[in-house]
């Protein structure tokens, strides 16, 4: 699914990644770790198609609409409600049974009661939950998750575990984290950036 050969990335004159090799087969689960500033986010953005490598070759074998990308920012409009945000993405991704799925996800992530509130008024954890809803909404084949456990409480983290449990094996995962124990049991590939 993902094949990186000697990938490097520069920002201006600054080298952020060098010689990264990565192979994630369909259904694999790649765990990316490394200290702050190692380039995890940069690598994930490239795999999601938001940036290009400066060197090397990167192949991601999946069309854009089958990718779900969880970034550091929640990527939702602060002035819209949760419902309006998910509805918009549902339309753009042409999700079948859109309204039903939106309702189901909001309920699953405990946001149903708050669905009519401005996202700007959400707490950080609620925003992260909404971002997860956004990512799962169109049932992607490749999930690129950048520190997905951030800001989640214990129950939220368990929820995410369940989701991973359910999807893992079937979908391909590329996950970065500072707490590798949490997802260690899923991992089929490990990449440590330095």
């Amino acid at each position, binding site marked *: 699914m993902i094949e990186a050969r000697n990938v490097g990335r*520069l*920002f*201006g*004159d600054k*080298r952020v990644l060098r010689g990264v090799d990565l192979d994630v087969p369909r259904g694999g689960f790649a765990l990316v770790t490394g200290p702050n500033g190692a380039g995890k986010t940069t690598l994930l953005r490239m795999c999601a198609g938001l940036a*290009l490598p*400066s060197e090397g070759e990167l192949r991601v074998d999946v069309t854009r609409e089958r990718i779900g990308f969880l970034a550091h920012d929640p990527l939702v409009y602060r002035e819209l409600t949760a419902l309006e945000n998910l509805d918009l993405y549902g339309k753009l991704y042409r999700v079948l049974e859109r309204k039903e799925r939106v309702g189901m996800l909001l309920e699953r992530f405990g946001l149903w009661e708050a669905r009519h509130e401005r996202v700007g008024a959400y707490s950080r954890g609620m925003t992260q939950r909404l971002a997860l809803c956004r990512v799962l909404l169109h049932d992607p084949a490749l999930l690129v998750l950048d520190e997905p456990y951030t800001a989640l409480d214990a129950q939220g983290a368990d929820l995410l575990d369940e989701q991973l449990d359910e999807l893992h094996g079937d979908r391909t995962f590329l996950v970065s984290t500072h707490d590798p124990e949490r997802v260690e049991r899923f991992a089929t590939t490990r990449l440590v950036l330095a």
Partner: protein
Amino acid sequence: MRRAHRIPLPALAVAALVLVVAALVLVFFVAPNDADQGFSQRIFYFHVSIAFTSYLCFGAGAWKALRHLWKRDPHADLESYVAVHQGVIFGSLVLLTGSIWAKISWGHWWLWSENQLVLFLVLFLFYAAYFMLRFSVDPGPQRANLSAVYALFGVVLVPVSFMAIRLAQHFIHPVVFTRHGAAFGGWILVAYLVSQAAIIVLAYTLYRVELAGKLLAARVRELRLA
């Protein structure tokens, strides 16, 4: 392979030098004095050639931009930028020579009533903004894309602005080929053509020099970062 049968840079430089000298000789010693403007009219040979050349540079920049967007030609971004840069340099020279000429023959450095001048100013402003744009993005694929897109906008803007100026229905000044009709022949024509050739070759030489420098700098940077 496209680069293989390029004219070597030294040969170009020599050709540019020879042509410029020839043009200077023709313009100042051979071509006849203009009937109503006298000696100052000789600036025309350069003014017009430079204006034409700057349009050529903008066109070349747009062509390279298209190659970048379309073929992802790896050098095209730099080539496009250098071409536009030359265009802006020659554009400044148009403003300069034009202003000098205007001061001599009209007594003003600048006339807002001359729409042709204002049009050129508009284009000049646009390309100046192109530079601002390019320098406010970090080097990388994004900068290459944005530069290319605006280089294309520039060449679309040129004819559109021309049309707009025509529509503005004011007196439009550079109508040499009709106004001077009969007088435009003989040594005047030769002097003009040679100056035009000289300026074009000069521009191409400068383009190649700047490009070589930029490529070298890029190579050095690559080696340093490797």
